[in-house]
């Protein structure tokens, strides 16, 4: 299958170095301390942050730093496994570690910060259902279990994206926004973006079809100000010189996302400040 046409266009009409459309909104989950929605094309992720608050499980308390916990990520599987399946455990571990690297946990000793995610593969007409899901999030603010999405998906026929690199980076971007909204001190914002290599062309920000093609796929998370990499994942083999190209492309994508996130945050801060008044 041709993923890049001879004219140099991809299946959804983008250029190889073009990102999907970004959209971010802050403050969507009313009951959370911080929340955000991040959209990359059709991948939509809601992130909610609860805390810093008292540790619920006292035995997990850490005396000199905050505990970052995360609900098991909801994957496409409808069956709920008692111990969580490997895929969701892996993705929540990856996201948790990435976020933990940027939070200044030592400033909030003996407390816990909870992260919740919800990813939906949306079309516009599903927007109302999405709102319902937000309400659901607010209800299930306890982090112990993952959200009852599966019930909803069967009833309303929302197709939930299989956990792919796109969701992973969208989650990290949404989490950054939500943490900043919750006023949790961070070293730097973390942004993440993926890039792949198909038809011997490096492609930025793979969409669902390109992702399912099974080609190499590099997910990078960076701290743009510190210029450091916090996350780097690749599931296939690539020659070193090509890998460098692809990773460079992904980093460029991260920087573009960082600029966008900064704009959104600054706008939000200004709004809050002027509305509050003197």
């Amino acid at each position, binding site marked *: 299958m041709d993923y890049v046409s001879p004219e140099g266009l991809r299946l959804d009409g983008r250029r190889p170095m073009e990102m999907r459309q970004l959209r971010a909104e802050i403050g969507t989950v009313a009951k959370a301390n911080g929340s955000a929605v991040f959209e990359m094309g059709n991948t939509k992720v809601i992130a909610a942050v609860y805390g810093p608050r008292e540790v619920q499980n006292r035995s997990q308390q850490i005396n000199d730093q905050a505990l970052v916990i995360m609900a098991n990520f909801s994957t496409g599987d409808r069956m709920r496994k008692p111990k969580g399946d490997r895929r969701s455990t892996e993705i929540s571990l990856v996201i948790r570690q990435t976020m933990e690297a940027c939070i200044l946990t030592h400033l909030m000793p003996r407390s816990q910060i909870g992260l919740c995610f919800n990813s939906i593969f949306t079309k516009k007409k599903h927007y109302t259902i999405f709102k319902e899901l937000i309400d659901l999030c607010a209800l299930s603010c306890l982090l112990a279990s993952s959200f009852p999405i599966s019930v909803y998906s069967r009833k309303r026929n929302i197709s939930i994206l299989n956990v792919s690199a796109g969701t992973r980076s969208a989650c990290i971007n949404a989490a950054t926004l939500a943490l900043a909204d919750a006023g949790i001190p961070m070293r730097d914002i973390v942004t993440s973006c993926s890039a792949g290599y198909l038809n011997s062309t490096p492609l930025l920000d793979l969409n669902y079809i390109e992702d399912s093609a099974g080609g190499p796929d590099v997910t990078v998370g960076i701290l743009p100000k510190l210029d450091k990499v916090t996350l780097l994942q690749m599931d296939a083999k690539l020659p070193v010189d090509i890998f460098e190209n692809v990773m460079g492309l992904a980093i460029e994508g991260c920087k573009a996302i960082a600029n966008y996130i*900064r704009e959104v*945050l600054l706008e939000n801060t200004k709004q809050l400040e002027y*509305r509050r008044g003197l």
Partner: protein
Amino acid sequence: MRGLQLPLSQTQRIRLQRALEKLQSLSCKANSDASVTVADTIPVNYEDAFLKGHGTTDLNGDLVATVCGVVERINKLVYVRALRARYKPEVGDIVVGRVVEVSQKRWRLEINFSLDAILMLSSMNMPDGIQRRHTALDELNMRGIFEENDVVCAEVRNFQHDGSLQLQARSQKYGKLEKGQLLIVDPYLVKKSKQHFHHLAQFGIDLILGRNGFIWVGEHVEARDSMVVDQANSSEQSMVPEEKNQTHTPLEMRQNICRIANAVRVLSTLGFSSDADLILGTVELSSTVKIDIHDMLGSEFHVLVAEREAERRSLMGKRKR
């Protein structure tokens, strides 16, 4: 931008937008761009010495913000005041909290801080108003004073060396709050002022603006300041409050409570700071336009409040000049 999740009609949307733009233009004159986001460099004069405060960190010699907020400079200190964070207690703040646990000689209170606050039995006056040592019997009767899920008003006493927070309730104005509503708003919306207890005499309602963003609207109770009297006939009086608790709150009172509570809710969704004057103004507005209590949370009233606030702030600005 933080969107309002309200169904707005076309005209309402335009009116709201206009009001918000007016607010923006008013505040822009007051303070120039002092807003920063995470990892923004804060401009400082390196020749003068400066102290880095909360919300800042040092990165290769630059001063960098770690939270989103507004840069504040006081003499040499440079810090970032975070908006929309959880409550950062200061000694002497009046807070409203909810009891989550009754344990040995102490209650644990949820006050929107990163840890639960502790109210020791020894740092509170007994409800009968007698100054005496707390005995083992008092410890057993702790649940008679506050139970789990009770709403309590107290003052921040101090920080322990390990960072946990102690409260005190050494006055008759502190203590259990009953017959009212607890509202939770963002702590940055409640400003520190001389007066956090308000008695709205025309409604017969107590309004307590906890600095942690917990706002209490409840029926007015007379502060029992007369400790001497209490001591004299404490045995007889101990029965009286029990009977009082049984009596119903009249319907009108409950409506007043709801009206004020809804006014606070509207102000907090719009992100306006909630001080007593503004809350009262909103209540007055709601009664002058004769809006039903349950319609106060609708979009029309939100727009009205936003317009009125824009008006008020522009008037205030003119008066200053």
